[in-house]
């Protein structure tokens, strides 16, 4: 879909989107639209998009999912269970009948954005623009222009929610290509704590385009565990932009497991604005066929004593492409920063390719920063060793692949989720093993 086509649609559809005619929201949307108009779809000429080509988006006439009719339940793919609270969005429309948001303790808001906007949503006028991703991000601007529904979480000071919050996004396009622009907001006030599980599943003979923005604000001492599973339909475009802002001694632990999608860009901008903030973001990407999966992470250390850890493991088969771009910026004020990033990739076939580069921009003098990147193949010696003990080639390959991604998986601190992720990844590896044996 071309830029003019998006613009043309704007006036007709926005009154029907979340928030209706609220003035502040309309102005925000208009601002998003004008930025998107100026920036256009990302081009590979831009440094940040050197390895990921979204030009195919321009050639597809996406209908805006938010104004399409509901998809009947029997047309939906299986929705994974994680227990706890659950909000299900189908093509970014909240589906209360599939969701579970009862019995919220005091000080907890867990709801859908459109619902909150229709009620007492004025606090969103402050927050949505404040946490947003960088101005220059075209797809986040597009999201702002057309933002539909999404998840809103707000925990008051000191509230610790034990039950995980499960955000489910289902993408499904049956007759024609659909686009949706979910907008999620997670606010943990000082000392609050929560676990967010985010799963994306999908199906569709035709393509859909999920262009989500997630804003996370962590107050002083707040703690968020955030586990994301991306298992979109094989035809889907998945673009997700997360903006994370952390105050003093806040902690963020993130994990992203990529299993699906056709063209995927998962971008995270973390700003460690307060002293002693700690963030870890780890990930595993498993891709085969012609899939393209890009993890782009930018961490800005703005205050002293912060710590960041990035570990991404990628396994690519057939003609899949993987990208990891990790950028760490350490401000002059951010003395005693401890930052490390590592990307490892395993190529299962000669047609697979891994790209990217680490970037460190350091303006403080008393810091510990490092990075590493390695691309390799399965270790022949190890394979032979396993086989010489009776383990067949396929199983031996799988043992080595699981060991490879295990290093990242073991950093998921919540055991029940870690086990689920390992099972999902194992299943995916099983299917990737096919056709790769020599």
């Amino acid at each position, binding site marked *: 879909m071309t830029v003019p086509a998006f613009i043309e649609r704007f006036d007709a559809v926005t009154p029907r989107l979340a928030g209706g005619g609220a003035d502040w929201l309309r102005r925000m949307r208009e601002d998003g639209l004008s930025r998107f108009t100026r920036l256009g779809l990302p081009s590979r000429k831009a440094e940040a998009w050197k390895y990921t080509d979204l030009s195919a988006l321009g050639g597809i006439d996406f209908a805006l999912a938010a104004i399409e009719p509901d998809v009947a339940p029997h047309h939906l793919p299986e929705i994974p269970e994680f227990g706890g609270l659950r909000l299900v969005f189908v093509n970014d429309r909240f589906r209360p009948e599939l969701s579970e948001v009862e019995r919220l303790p005091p000080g907890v808001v867990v709801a859908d954005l459109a619902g909150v906007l229709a009620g007492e949503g004025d606090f969103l006028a402050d927050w949505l623009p404040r946490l947003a991703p960088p101005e220059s991000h075209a797809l986040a601007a597009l999201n702002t222009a057309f933002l539909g529904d999404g998840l809103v979480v707000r925990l008051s000071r000191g509230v610790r929610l034990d039950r995980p919050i499960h955000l489910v996004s289902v993408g499904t396009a049956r007759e024609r290509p659909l686009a949706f622009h979910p907008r999620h907001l997670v606010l943990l006030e000082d000392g609050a704590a929560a676990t967010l599980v985010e799963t994306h599943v999908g199906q569709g003979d035709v393509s859909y385009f999920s262009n989500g923005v997630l804003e996370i604000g962590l107050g002083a001492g707040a703690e968020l565990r955030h586990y994301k599973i991306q298992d979109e339909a094989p035809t889907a475009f998945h673009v997700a932009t997360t903006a994370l802002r952390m105050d003093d001694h806040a902690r963020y632990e993130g994990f992203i497991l990529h299993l699906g999608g056709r063209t995927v860009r998962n971008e995270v901008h973390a700003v460690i604005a307060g002293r002693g903030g700690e963030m870890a973001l780890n990930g595993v990407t498993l891709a085969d066929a012609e899939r393209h999966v890009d993890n782009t992470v930018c961490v800005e250390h703005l205050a002293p004593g912060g710590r960041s850890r990035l570990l991404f493991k990628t396994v690519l088969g057939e003609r899949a492409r993987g990208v990891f771009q990790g950028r760490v910026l350490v401000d002059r004020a951010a003395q005693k920063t401890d930052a490390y990033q590592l990307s490892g990739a395993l190529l299962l076939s000669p047609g697979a390719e891994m790209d990217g580069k680490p970037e460190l921009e350091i303006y403080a003098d008393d810091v510990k920063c490092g990075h590493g990147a390695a691309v390799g193949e399965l270790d022949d010696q190890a394979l*032979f060793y*396993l086989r*010489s*003990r*009776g383990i*067949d080639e396929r199983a031996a390959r799988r043992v080595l692949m699981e*060991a490879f991604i295990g290093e990242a998986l073991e950093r998921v601190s919540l055991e029940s989720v870690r086990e689920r992720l390992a099972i999902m990844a194992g299943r995916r590896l099983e299917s990737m093993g096919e056709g790769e044996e020599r």
Partner: protein
Amino acid sequence: MALLKIENLHATVDGQEILKGIDLVIEPGEVHAIMGPNGSGKSTLSYVLAGRDGYEVTGGQVLYDGQDLLALKPEERARAGIFLAFQYPVEIPGVTTMTFLRTALNAVRKGSGLDELDAMQFLKLVRAKARALGIDEEMLKRAVNTGFSGGEKKRGEVLQMALLEPRLMVLDETDSGLDIDALKVVAGGVEALRSPERGMLVITHYQRILQYLVPDHVHVLSGGRIVRSGGRELADELERTGYAAFREQAA
């Protein structure tokens, strides 16, 4: 029927001929020792028997139990009862020794039509075998061979062997890197596997291990050929004279 029959075996590595016509017959119940200078092709022979890629057989044949061994994949050979204790056991980070042992044992058991062992049964078995070889259980929780000392790696090989109970054991310098006490324990563990149905090919540089693991036959491999065979006394002779005489013979 011979357990292993190697006839006029030729093999190349990277286009270079390393084995130049080897003949060797191991009957059930026999222990054979192979000695020979560095680079003479001992490990190459062991890899050819285990089926490693890149070791190309260019002539001759190998029969195991009367079957064409060279037609089998490495895992099929292992399931058929062949075990190679590596000269340099391979480190596999991220895979715990315990998981590895269990996967291997169940693969081999399945291959011989036996049921897989459940976690409890396996644990009992592996504990008993490890204890007999003086292996600390902590070692089993670590990644396969990763960061193990030379001696620990060799003990690990013998533990695998004791678990898998193979019929033909090829030990490639399993004694190297072991201290005197460990050598005794390990040799004892191997000796315990000796039986009328089983055969062993013990590759070594020293006659010391052969005092515990007394061979029926000793062969000298030099320049890719077996240049002399004899009884156990040949090992003592080699210890005194070295290989100088055989180097000339091979050239």
